[in-house]
């Protein structure tokens, strides 16, 4: 199924809106540290990045694993 241009427009639009809202609303504080790498959870757009790059990361990793571990459906029914 081909996704329409308006669908993409709305999706990007809402995603962009949440990023803008985040800058306007009160700032979050890190739950893990006062300074250094572990304050990253307070960075604006951090959760957006987790969502977007998390998907890409998981899809790529699982495709790589699948190249090794995916077998035909009758794998267990065939003799060795």
């Amino acid at each position, binding site marked *: 199924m081909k996704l329409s241009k308006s669908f993409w427009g709305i999706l990007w639009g809402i*995603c962009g809106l949440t990023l803008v809202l985040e800058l306007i609303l009160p700032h979050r504080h890190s739950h893990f540290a006062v300074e250094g790498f572990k304050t990253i959870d307070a960075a604006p757009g951090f959760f957006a990045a987790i969502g977007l790059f998390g998907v890409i990361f998981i899809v790529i990793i699982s495709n790589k694993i699948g190249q090794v*571990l*995916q077998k035909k459906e009758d794998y267990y029914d065939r003799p060795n």
Partner: protein
Amino acid sequence: MIDLISSVPPSFILILGALLVPFVKGTLRNVLVIALPAIAFLNILNIGCCTSYSLQFLGFELELLRADMWAKVFGYVFTIAAFATAIYGYHDKKASEFVAALMYIGSALGVVFAGDLVSLYIFWELMAVTSVALILSKRTLASRRAGTRYIIVHVFGGLVLLAGIMLHIHNTGSIAFTSFTTQSTAAVLILLGFLVNAAAYPLSSWLPDAYPEASAMGAVVLSAYTSKTAVYALMRGFPGWDILIIIGCAMAIYGVIYGLLENDIRRILAYSIVNQVGFMVCAVGVGSKLALAAVAAHAFCHILYKGLLFMSAGAVIQQTGKSKLSQLGGLAKSMPWTFIFMAIGALTIAGPLSSGFISKTMILKSVEKAHLFWPWLILEIGAVGVFLNAGLRLPYFTFFGKDSNVKAKEAPKHMLIGMAILAFLCIAIGIVPAYFYQILPHSEYVQSKMYSSFSDLYVHHFYAVLPKLQLVLFTILGFFLCLPIIKRNDTITLDTDWFYRKGADLFYNIVKGSTSIVNDLTHSVVIDKITKNVVAFTTNAPANAMLAVMVPIWKIMRYNDNEIKEQITNLRANVESNSFPVGLASLIIIFVLLTFTFNQ
């Protein structure tokens, strides 16, 4: 009446009630199956915290009704899910399936309300037996094979648990089921037994292997109980054990990666159970007050939305006869209500205004408060993954995507009602969590830490919801961007069950190969040489003895060499066929006797 039913353990109501099911027929049977969980629910609602019910067994005092907040919250959700499932399975005509399901749910309640290790173990094993009966009641070759593998794993887990319990009783002299504080051998064995049922990686593959082979109703029932009773047992027995944080994180990631490679729609959901149980196991490992309350909360909500997803997947399979993503697609027009309910279940996994949002936030908050950065990050990625897989990929390829031209009618009404009950609860808890917080353990503490009114949650603290909203929206964006490389092949993925499915053959061949050297040697020496010689000796002995006598006689009678050879051949043939003339035999005997006589 209520007083009467409040004085017995809820497990008895379902287990004894199940025994009545074969004796009633038709609509009455369905009414009974729907009524029993409802009665059990009322029973749990009315049990006071101090009610107890004990039995004497082998010199132990068994406590069958430890009805505190921990047990009751699991009891509520177990009976609610059973009630909705009984309506969903109204079409089912097999009494055996209802009996197995009710006894299975009853024994799960038995585990949850057990106050001691002995009765816990008895119900634990009853649960294994009745759940395999539920898998087998589909009566197909695939379900029989999966059921066999399932029971082998659970018998193994049960034996480990039994060993641990016996060792524990031997060491401490107490059968009480309280939390384990020392890492003794007994405690570790009990932990292992629990982890098998919790489908902890790498002991997890039995779950996606077996559940999708059950019937539509069977899979809904199975999805709720075994892994959640194990979560309950871990929560009571092993709060704060650090190893559980690592195991939980491994489960969260494993469930996502394998789920994404899967093609069977209920197997995708089975992998997402492993992922979600991973969240609970991790929170048990954190072990704080909030974390343990979050475990109970997430188990509650997870049973509701995973039951809903299994129900809608079962409805799709029943109406289309197909269970593979690669064969489905474009069903939104023909099964709109099923689609709506699956969408509610899917959004409940992560989206705001749903029960999953409430309970998952509690778990992540407890991990945050314990300052566990890396586990927290892994769980966030696990949450993205499970929403991607069970929340987007599954509904998209089933109801949209390429049109499969599968002809299907909307699911029957009773199935839709079953789904509607769970869908309603999923949303209600998300919108007004205040009532839900009240039934949780440490409820006052939870209410002081979490926002409980709608306006507090979603309006006044919108800035706190926004990141979660971003997570969901960008996961959706990522899904559609990655759509061309998200797979749905006609394949299966090798999991740890390979070790006992293919590995068993391999092991057999290795053992055969290594022992066959000895075997072959023994064969060649004992069978081929020694035995053969003994046999040849004993069969030829009579003929040889006779020849020893006869050949000299023939020589005396002046036979030539050729005639002697001919006589020898004749004699051997006669001995083998036992057919000498009587005269010849008697002649030989007389000759032998004479020789003996003269020699003396």
